[in-house]
């Protein structure tokens, strides 16, 4: 894919490294000359120096019809301008940005940004989960908290050990989507799959049902 990374410091550096490894074609725009020099020499990719929220800078970078733009500046309003220029003037297919103010996450989606990432929101969610649910359980929310994926480690004293999936009473809007078992890579289970002690279950559910799901598995 052809991807533009606009603005940002450490996040940009890390992200660019990952994307280059995956063989994507990357163009970088950054407003700090010294950081531009660093990025271009580290990653061997084209870097344009300038304010990415200016139309002529995006034009010079030649981003017409790119697949994705990721706006990582520290100013939310700048990120919105970058995404809107990319979409409206340069036909970029998917526009993604981060926001510092979590209140802007839903707002920016309404204003046309495809994906808005609020690290404040994610960290807050993660801390809330870490403090409310048992500490062995990892969980991740998707689609603005509509869906949650939870990893549950099956201890030998759980009642579900030895049961087939169809005999476990899960609440509505929840499913055990995947079992990770040491002896095999992963299992996409069906109703007849039996749960064993030591399994890791990946459960997909609504966040409201999370506690009930964990209750049904761990009781």
């Amino acid at each position, binding site marked *: 894919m052809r991807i533009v990374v606009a603005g940002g410091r450490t996040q940009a550096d890390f992200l660019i490294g990952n994307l280059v490894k995956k063989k994507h074609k990357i163009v970088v725009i950054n407003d700090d000359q010294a950081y531009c020099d660093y990025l271009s020499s580290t990653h061997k990719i084209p870097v344009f120096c300038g304010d990415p*929220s*200016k*139309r*002529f800078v995006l034009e010079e970078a030649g981003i017409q019809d790119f697949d994705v733009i990721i706006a990582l500046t520290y*100013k*939310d*309003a*700048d990120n*919105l*301008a970058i995404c*809107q*220029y990319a979409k*409206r*003037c340069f036909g970029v297919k998917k526009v993604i940005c981060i926001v510092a*103010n979590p*209140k*802007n996450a839903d*707002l920016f989606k*309404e*204003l046309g940004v495809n994906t808005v990432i609020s690290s404040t929101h994610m960290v807050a969610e993660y801390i809330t989960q870490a403090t409310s649910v048992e500490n062995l359980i990892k969980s991740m929310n998707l689609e603005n908290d509509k869906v949650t994926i939870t990893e549950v480690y099956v201890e030998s004293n759980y009642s579900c050990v030895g049961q087939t999936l169809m005999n476990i009473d899960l609440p509505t809007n929840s499913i055990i989507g995947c079992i990770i078992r040491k002896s095999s890579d992963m299992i996409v289970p069906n109703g007849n799959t039996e749960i064993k002690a030591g399994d890791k279950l990946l459960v997909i559910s609504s966040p409201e049902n999370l506690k009930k799901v964990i209750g049904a598995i761990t009781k």
Partner: protein
Amino acid sequence: MKLERKERVIIVGCGRLGRRLATMLSDKGYQVIVIDNDETAFSKLPETFGGFTIKADGIDVDTLKYADIDEASMLVACTGNDNLNSLIAQIASRIFAVPNVYVRFEDTDKELLIKGFNIHGIYPFKLTMGVFEDTIFGENEEEEDL
């Protein structure tokens, strides 16, 4: 302009333009709310100013809700930052459907961000160029698109 008196006007940015506009509309009897992130900016409002002021660190959707934006008939975004002005104007027009939204842009390219929406752009650069063209070529010459 079809504003009725006593209607609510929100002005974001209490610089020279925001201040003069706020004073003028308040004198004419509109209910004016001025928002700025710098409290000292309000001290330059004249003593006769009869409107409200809101100091907001980061101006966001909650600031505008606090100013009762859903009852406003007009909003003017005239902070010193084009991208922030664009964001505020789009919140007002596209989210809260404020009927009269004005936005000031130093960079004329920002017009592309509000094109197609019910938002009026004000461009000091274009206005200045207009004065030069009028002075140099006279008012009867054909106007060139900038």
